[in-house]
């Protein structure tokens, strides 16, 4: 098999791209998509470490499966928030939502 660090490198790249998306995108939905990328990067790492270190144990897969649950819940509520904000302010630009900023 390819050495473990290659998977980790792909995950690092995916995480960095997601990071850029979170920092630079204006549209809140795009930011949420970038967060999905980062979650997936974490998942690649979990599965890769499970495969290369402890394939006989289930823990790695279990954790990755729970990440899916968290991702689903996060997307559901996050998008609902965005839709609600859009209804009230007619905007999905994250910078416009600054009520709590000082």
């Amino acid at each position, binding site marked *: 098999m390819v050495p473990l660090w290659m998977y980790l490198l792909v995950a690092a790249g995916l995480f960095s791209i997601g990071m850029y998306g979170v920092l630079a995108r204006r549209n809140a939905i795009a930011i949420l998509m970038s967060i999905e990328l980062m979650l997936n990067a974490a998942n690649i790492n979990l599965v890769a470490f499970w495969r290369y270190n402890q394939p006989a144990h289930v823990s790695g897969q279990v954790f990755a*499966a729970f990440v899916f*649950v968290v991702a*689903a*819940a996060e997307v*559901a509520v996050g*998008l*609902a928030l965005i*839709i609600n904000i859009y209804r009230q302010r007619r905007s999905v630009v994250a910078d416009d939502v600054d009520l709590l900023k000082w």
Partner: protein
Amino acid sequence: MTVNEWIFVGLFLALAWLLPATPIILAKFLAPKRPNPIKQQVYECGVETMGNTWVQFRAQYYIYALVFLLFDVEIVFLFPWALAYNKLGLFALFEVVVFVVLLVVALLYTWRKRALEWSS
């Protein structure tokens, strides 16, 4: 359980789309091509189309997708349970019932709040 079982699926994904793509490409050479502005209009029962296509949709669609997503995740968790079912005791079934009932409660809530109505 090996990686090899996926070779066929991978090859299928990589190659099989060529078959439905062939007639499209073939049609590019065989079919006539005489575009004119009227033919290329967006179809709207003979009326000229007005405004943006991306009209705003109702939130109803989102609610259905939402319920679907959460049930989807639940079902995915039921698959390994179903696979190992013969090795598990009755207690495992009880746990799964609890697992399912919790989400059904959420479905009932959505139902009671009339969010699952098409025309609210």
